[in-house]
């Protein structure tokens, strides 16, 4: 995981990697998560 050779060694990661499709600055990740959290609070569920 450190050296770049992916065929050998262990690649420990969670299932949620399936939902990820970009590499972002860590600070941006914190901002994005918080923004989505507050937007979700305002509009939590789908309704008719």
């Amino acid at each position, binding site marked *: 995981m450190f050296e770049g050779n992916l065929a050998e060694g262990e690649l420990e990661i969670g299932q949620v990697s399936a939902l990820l499709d970009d590499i972002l600055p860590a600070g941006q990740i914190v901002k994005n998560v918080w923004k989505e959290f*507050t937007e979700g609070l305002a509009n939590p569920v789908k309704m008719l």
Partner: protein
Amino acid sequence: MTALSSSFRGTVGFSNRITKLFGIDYPIIQAGMIWASGWKLASAVSNAGGLGIIGSGSMYPDVLREHIRKCKAATILPFGVNVPLLYPAFDKHIDIIIEEGVKIVFTSAGNPKTWTSVLKEKGITVVHVISSSKFAKKSEEAGCDAVVAEGFEAGGHNGREETTTMVLIPAVVEAVKIPVIAAGGIANGRQMLAAMVMGAEGVQLGSRFVASEEASSHINFKNEVINSKEGDTKLAMKELTPVRLLKNDFFKEVDEAEKEEQR
């Protein structure tokens, strides 16, 4: 007014037991992960208002000391160190943590009773990572300030019960009075909201922060992470210590070896 709305005074006015415990703006914690979370990642997360954590498991003691010092130079805000209690010589890590004045420690695996009181005597905030309500209770009894309840979706070392986050969080919230941080499968704000609706007071993200610019993992690994699809991770070495990892040649070898043993 609910407790949540009365604490929520605007974008940076949010407060709850977790933000107060650590002195952070948002109850968003970046997991301490071996090979992936050094001072760069931890300080970037802390500077953004979350809690960054240095993963000490893959570090020699002097390397850990260097990361702690560099992290302090890169952020004035709180950060923590994760200590897996099953790696060799972790007691040296604990000595360094105390010497360098680290204020927040996340311990994982092993028995929380052994080290919690040692750390708390030095005024350090202690959080233990667990995967069952049984161990959540043990952590509370040992004096931990909070627990991370990590579900089966999580990468790395997993609990034998294989309880997923959806089931684990309500169970642990019910079992203890100390704050619960939800982990395992969480990468975005809606999942964070779901975990907190279930009673968690914070979330810990691992994989999402591996796929960051500052993570110390190799770029090839980061690309594997963002290219992976549902079903690409699997538990390996179940008989020894369960570990979730991406299927690759190593996994196939281990898988073959396990199947061979069963014949």
